[in-house]
């Protein structure tokens, strides 16, 4: 009689793995990455390579220090790539590298590694750089010029000089800005691909972008301009959809999107910065545990009980 294997059911598992998800996200970022390199030249490629390399190396050594096994699951590549995509094209490489180091070492591994971090690592890295090197982080170069002559971002022009960049430039990305944030079309291709593959939840980008659009329209601003300009699309499709740092339920993710949308509008209209996507996502990351605690699906056979929300927990 053969030796049989016993294990608890189910005996079937889907073929979706962490690696498959991560590498699909990387594929979805290819249009945006290619666009950034095309628009801002070879230095953008150096920035991207530096960030990815620094992120992967940092993760390797950090996990070794923690006594854990390093797995090339693609998550560090995404963090490095996303950080690079929201950096100015001419940023000195050493600054970019420090950003990637901070993102992985402090925002991810210090919390316990994959799945444990509270704040989006790429955006944490960016926030660290904005505070540490404010000038380098706000020096923008012209697209397709491949030189060091500086320009302003569409949101900067809007905030300082009340100028509206044409929609076509915003769609194609031929404006000043971070490496990966300028081309709306490239981001939508990648984001649409992930939604179609069901690897990201459409509810977050839709509620996030929708909230910004609707509020801007109500407040008499140009709705489409505010959706296309700045980092909203990149943030909505690739950072506000980072599983680890957003709520786990669909309803919670809608709340997250609405909250982040409101913060963007407040910062853009009232705050000192022209752009608020980074802070909006990081601030909502902080609310994620709270949202997860209270927003739960309705259980079969149990009527919805909103009074639970008002009761003090033990």
């Amino acid at each position: 009689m053969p030796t049989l294997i016993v294990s608890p059911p189910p005996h079937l598992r889907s073929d979706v793995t962490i690696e498959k998800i991560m590498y699909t996200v990387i594929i979805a970022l290819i249009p945006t990455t290619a666009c950034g390199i095309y628009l801002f030249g070879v230095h953008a490629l150096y920035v991207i390579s530096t960030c990815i390399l620094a992120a992967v190396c940092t993760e390797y050594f950090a996990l070794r220090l923690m006594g854990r096994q390093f797995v090339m699951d693609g998550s560090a590549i995404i963090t490095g790539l996303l950080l690079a995509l929201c950096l100015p094209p001419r940023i000195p490489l050493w600054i970019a590298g420090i950003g990637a180091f901070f993102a992985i070492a402090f925002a991810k591994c210090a919390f316990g590694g994959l799945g444990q971090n509270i704040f989006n690592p790429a955006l944490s890295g960016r926030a660290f750089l904005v505070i540490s090197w404010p000038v380098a982080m706000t020096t923008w170069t012209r697209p397709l010029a491949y030189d060091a002559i500086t320009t302003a971002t569409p949101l900067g022009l809007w905030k300082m000089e009340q100028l509206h960049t044409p929609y076509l430039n915003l769609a194609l990305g031929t404006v000043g800005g971070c490496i990966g944030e300028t081309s709306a079309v490239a981001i939508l291709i990648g984001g649409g691909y992930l939604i179609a593959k069901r690897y990201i939840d459409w509810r977050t980008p839709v509620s996030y972008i929708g909230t910004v659009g609707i509020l801007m329209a109500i407040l008499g601003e140009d709705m489409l301009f505010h959706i296309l300009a700045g980092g909203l699309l990149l943030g909505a499709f690739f950072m506000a959809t980072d599983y680890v740092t957003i709520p786990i339920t669909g309803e919670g993710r809608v709340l997250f999107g609405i909250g982040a949308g409101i913060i963007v509008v407040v910062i853009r209209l009232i705050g000192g910065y022209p752009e608020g996507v980074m802070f909006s996502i990081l601030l909502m990351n902080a609310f994620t545990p709270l949202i997860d605690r209270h927003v739960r699906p309705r259980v079969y056979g149990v009527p919805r009980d909103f009074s639970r929300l008002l009761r003090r927990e033990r």
Partner: protein
Amino acid sequence: MVKLKSFRGGIHPPGLKLTAGKAIEVAKLPASVTMLLHQHIGAPCTPVVNEGDLVRAGQKIGDADSFLSAPVHASISGTVTEIGVQPSPLTAAGVQGIKIESDGKDEREVMEAMDPDTASPHDLIARIREAGIVGLGGAAFPTAVKLTPPEGKAIDTVILNGAECEPGITADHRLMVEQPEKIVKGMKVIMKVLGAEHGFIGIEANKRDAIQRMREALEEDADGRISVLALKTKYPQGEAGILIKTIVNRETPSGSHSYDIGVIVQNVATAKAIHDAVFEGVALIERVVTVTGDVQEPKNLLARVGTSFYELLDHCGGFKGDVGKILAGGSMLGVAEYQNVPLIKGVNCIFVVNREHARLPEERACIRCGSCIEICPMGLIPMMLGQLARKHRFNECEEYHIFDCMECGSCTYVCPSKLPLVQFISYGKERLKRRG
């Protein structure tokens, strides 16, 4: 196109219905059988025969005084050779069983046929119990008990479960295609016993031939109270609570029974067994079982209860490749066996998995993707339950409705980190139950 009835969440595992087009084949009469005395939910039976006795197929060999039980009958004619602890598909400890050596004659013992139009519900229920009928969809709950709702609970709707949503299994499918009239007659007996006005037969849309054959059978035997519904092909469509929600849009309140909302669900194979017991006086001694997966020739077999798994596997040409797992049941819910065990009433499938496919995936950290929440048909948060149970935070498990989990395994199926979520959940439940 009409929108198919469906439910919240659910998964789409590969169908693996290799035997959907294969007619039910009568398995060779086994040389010996092992009749387990506890193959149902409820009290175990005690033997009513002795070693050395001659028995006939259909003769009662075990019964219990408790109402919550079902008698066991000899499935072949021959001599009782041994009464003692035997290996069981459901528990590693084994249960009491009776071994019968065949005399090769297959002499039958049948009860008197009944006319359900004139018989009283009480007599019909007594017959269903006497025939040893249990739920044949897998749970093996004694049918006579299920058809006796508590005082004051009126049942208005009977749902016949022909969903067969689990990958691999086609036993009910073939039964619906080949013997739809018997299923309809059995269903009418159920409706009469319960005094129910409405009847639904729910079948997943991928079984078109079954839907058509059941509809034809209903046309011939029509009184307009029963209808066949095509349901979206999605696991776990066949889980009773989900089926009720899908078909009549009622939810069994947490912690109670479908009696409370006036619905009773029975499997199509159970209805067929009821037909046999009432119209032909035949006790439940054989059932259709799908033998599939990595076997040479997957088949739907009409097999005697008590036949050994290996004998049924031999009937299908044996293993294909290096055997890894043998499952009693389908690939989502089946119990992995570690030895040769006898067929029991509740087993609808024997599923063989190759050694290379039987490898367990490596467990990784949860990335909070939310897939398990998205697909949980009960609206639970499996990743949370899994984490809490793993950390022995059982009180919080209850807050997250751990006891509403029906353990369909969908969360474990979808998890990209390959966490055995349903295993943690059933562990948590077990610990909470033991604590009382």
